[in-house]
């Protein structure tokens, strides 16, 4: 007994036009409004805090900057109080975690939740198509996250503006705009880092398929990447300039120092103790050591210079800030696009 | 419409003794071994880092202290060496989020995962009893978190000891003692415990894992800010370190116990 059927010709996808992308706008919003709303609330609270702290900081700066004469005790007091305002924010490290948190808590659950709860069996069998659905969601939500992050980074830039205003930098002991704590909070870097955290999160969610492990993996991967970029990569974006001595315009970011004698390389970094003992052991009494990181009132530099050594510094001037921003933003964006592309390609292959 | 029965008085539970608590040991471990293992790995990696930088720091410190004459250029150079060592560990900021992270990734999962996946319908109909199950799990995990955090904070205290030992390199005006307060003594373990307890409550109230983790981090931050700004301003931690530690530790312990008690009570009262 043969079953009688009319043979069906192979259906071609070419006959069916894909559904318009904008249909995914509502879908993406509806499923991720919790996460996006949460990010907005979180950043809103932070923004409120930064706003009040920033007003305080700006006020202290104005008071200190307009005080004359600047060497008087009263003005020194004002400068000191400016320097100790909001110390926790000063180096900028506290805010470094933000792109990671935003990316991890928005990006990782995007695909991991669908897979973990099984709803991908609904979502990826709809007429919209598996890959297009994923692409639409990642792009739409990624854009939303980038916009929110961008708005926030404008506020952050405003906050740090007193430290970076030109003039009197040494007086205010302000950090360089290229310093690791501040660089990626401003300009396009903050947005770019948030995007890359989001992209890492999405891929981690797809690979790991469980939400909480994906979040943890995203945070770990982001931390690794950020440390790598800040400590190893960034200083090489453009060839550093070289200058004699260490008296550089305060906005410069010194990446390494070394000493020569007689035109030949002597040593790098800090002077070796044995050399100092040998050449500079004459004890001239100084006060206790200076502030952390500063060369206090004693001066091994002077002593070594007297003995024919020359100090050199590699540095990146403040004018490199925007080129660096574009370079870092560029490769981060490229990396994000690559991660998203890999995610979409893997969607077909990894799931059921 | 009534069926005819003679109503009988309801029996009490007095006749059945509860099952021994140790039965929950295996259950708790089996369900949370990945979270606990993750915490161990995370703290282990941090410990390795602290250990290696700390050895260097202690070495440089010893050299600087032993150098004579104290005011000479060479000895001052050694002092500068000491002050420069440590990188981002210097201010202690980097380690501040650690208790929050430990608690936030262990605490909320306990109840939120059961509620989110529906397995509470199995767990809460077993013979062990619902609130006993909850309290056994929460207490076991709380002890584990506090113990691991406590062990880690011993290493942290060792690391920062050169900055805080009285001597010619000690700067009493520095705010370092203030910032490091939460990382030393019993405070570190107490903060990790508090984060865990907040997380447990968040998990029970919110019933979904990821929002509960976020809420825990937010709640912890709010608590930390309140304690730092409002309470610590009234004390000078450098002066009477241990008494303030005991006050803060005791307060956090009481708060944690309260959160856990509330969580268990919610398990007992709230239902499907």
């Amino acid at each position, binding site marked *: 007994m043969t079953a009688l059927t009319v043979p069906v010709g192979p259906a071609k996808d070419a006959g069916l036009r894909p559904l318009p992308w904008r249909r995914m706008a509502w879908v993406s919003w509806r499923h991720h409004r919790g996460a996006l709303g949460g990010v907005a609330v979180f950043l809103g609270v932070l923004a409120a805090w930064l706003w009040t702290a920033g007003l305080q900081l700006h006020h202290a700066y104005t008071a200190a900057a307009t005080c004359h004469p600047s060497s008087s005790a009263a003005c020194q007091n004002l400068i000191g109080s400016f320097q100790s305002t909001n110390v926790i924010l000063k180096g900028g490290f506290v805010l470094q975690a933000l792109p990671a948190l935003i990316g991890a808590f928005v990006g990782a659950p995007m695909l991991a939740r669908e897979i973990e709860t099984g709803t991908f069996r609904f979502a990826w069998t709809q007429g919209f198509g598996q890959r297009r659905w994923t692409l639409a969601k990642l792009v739409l939500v990624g854009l939303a996250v980038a916009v929110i992050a961008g708005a926030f980074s404008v506020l952050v830039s405003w906050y740090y503006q007193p430290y970076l205003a030109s003039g009197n930098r040494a007086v205010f002991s302000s950090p360089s705009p290229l310093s690791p704590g501040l660089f990626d909070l401003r300009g396009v870097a903050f947005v770019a880092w948030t995007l890359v955290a989001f992209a890492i999160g999405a891929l981690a969610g797809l690979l790991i398929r469980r939400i909480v492990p994906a979040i943890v993996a995203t945070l770990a991967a982001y931390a690794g990447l950020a440390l790598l970029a800040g400590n190893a990569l960034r200083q090489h974006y453009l060839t550093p300039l070289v200058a004699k001595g260490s008296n550089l315009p305060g906005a410069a970011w010194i990446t390494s120092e070394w000493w020569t004698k007689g035109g030949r390389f002597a040593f790098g970094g800090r002077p070796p103790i044995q050399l100092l003992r040998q050449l500079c052991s004459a004890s001239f009494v100084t006060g206790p050591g200076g502030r952390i990181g500063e060369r206090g009132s004693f001066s091994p530099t002077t002593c070594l210079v007297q003995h024919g050594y020359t100090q050199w510094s590699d540095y990146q001037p403040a004018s490199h800030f925007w080129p660096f921003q574009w370079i870092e933003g560029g490769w981060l964006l490229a990396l994000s696009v690559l991660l998203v592309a890999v995610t979409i390609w893997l969607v077909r292959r990894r799931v059921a | *419409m009534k069926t005819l029965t003679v109503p009988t008085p309801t029996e009490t539970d007095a006749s059945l003794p509860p099952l021994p608590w140790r039965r929950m040991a295996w259950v708790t471990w089996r369900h949370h071994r990945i979270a606990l293992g993750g915490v161990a790995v995370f703290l282990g990696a941090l410990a390795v880092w602290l250990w290696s930088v700390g050895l260097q720091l202690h070495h440089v410190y010893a050299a600087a202290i032993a150098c004579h004459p104290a005011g000479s250029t060479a000895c001052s150079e050694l002092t500068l060496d000491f002050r420069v060592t440590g990188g981002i560990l210097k201010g202690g900021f980097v380690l501040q989020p650690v208790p929050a992270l430990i608690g936030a990734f262990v605490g909320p999962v306990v109840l939120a995962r059961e509620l989110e996946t529906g397995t509470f319908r199995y767990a809460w*109909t077993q013979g062990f009893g619902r609130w006993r199950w909850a309290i056994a799990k929460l207490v076991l995990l709380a002890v584990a978190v506090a113990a691991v955090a406590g062990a880690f904070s011993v290493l942290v205290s060792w690391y920062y000891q050169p900055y805080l030992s009285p001597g010619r390199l000690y700067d009493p005006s520095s705010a370092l003692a203030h910032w490091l307060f939460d990382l030393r003594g019993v405070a570190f373990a107490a903060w990790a415990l508090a984060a865990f307890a907040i997380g447990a409550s968040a998990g029970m109230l919110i019933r979904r894992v990821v929002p509960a983790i976020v809420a825990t981090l937010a709640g912890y931050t709010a608590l930390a800010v309140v304690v730092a700004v409002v309470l610590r301003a009234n004390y000078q931690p450098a002066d009477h370190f241990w008494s303030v530690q005991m006050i803060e530790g005791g307060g956090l312990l009481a708060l944690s116990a309260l959160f856990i008690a509330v969580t268990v009570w919610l398990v007992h009262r709230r239902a499907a």
Partner: protein
Amino acid sequence: MNVIEANDLGKRYGNTWALRECTLAVPEGCLTALVGPNGAGKTTLLNLAVGLTDPSSGTISVLGARRAGSLGALDGIAFVAQDAPLYKDLSAADLLHETRNLNRRFDQGYAERRLGELGIPLRQKAGRMSGGQQAQVALTLALARRPQLLVLDEPLANLDPLSREDFMTTVMAAAAEDGVSVVLSSHVLAELERVADYLVLASHGNIQVAGEVEGLLAAHRMLVGLASESARYAQHWNVVHASSDSSQAHLLIRGDSAADPLPPGWDERAPTLEELTMAYLRESGAAASSGHRGSGANPSAVTR
């Protein structure tokens, strides 16, 4: 002893009453079918019985006089929830270990034998099992606790016909050999028809029918006759529900036998359980119960 006894039991979620004015007494030693459409309140009733939720009104006691959710109740009742939730990351062996830890009685040998018979390796993680296997594992865990009462919430919903038969065979064996009372809810009555001793019919949060199947069927008759005559004769009888097509009418009536002799051309027979259930479900105002053994004589109380 009644395994479940409810008195004016009600449960409200917000402003909605999921269950209301529920009074019933389920005797021990029976296989009780709890039947009704989706949303009828079956899951609510079962959740109340196993202590997962507390009543908003009325009382419920289980296994004689134990409070639902108490240690004594938890000890004697094994529950398998809808969709048989198991911990996805735990292997079958882990699930046995956990259930053994959490209960007073656990028959490890039985559980391992059962899993062996089912062909489920002990190292298999629950998340990787098929729906049928998960249901069987959940049932094994429940039966290995040696309960007095086994409560199953829509256990057959996701199973294929073969799995369903295997599942019910296991349940029946436990009921017959070990004397386990069973309360089983379903919205598909056909499967339970053959095996149920006691029927509870729920609809829109109310209990419409509660009673021994034997007694219920004996208390109703199905009359079949010409459709054109049904209206004329219907008022003679206590009709629960009348249905007709173009030629024939089926009338489900209450009464041991028709009080008057049947009109010519009409037949009567005992209704099937399915016909009884469908009739009551269609007549939402109707209700019925019948006596059950062990609690004294109880005339059929019928209200409309």
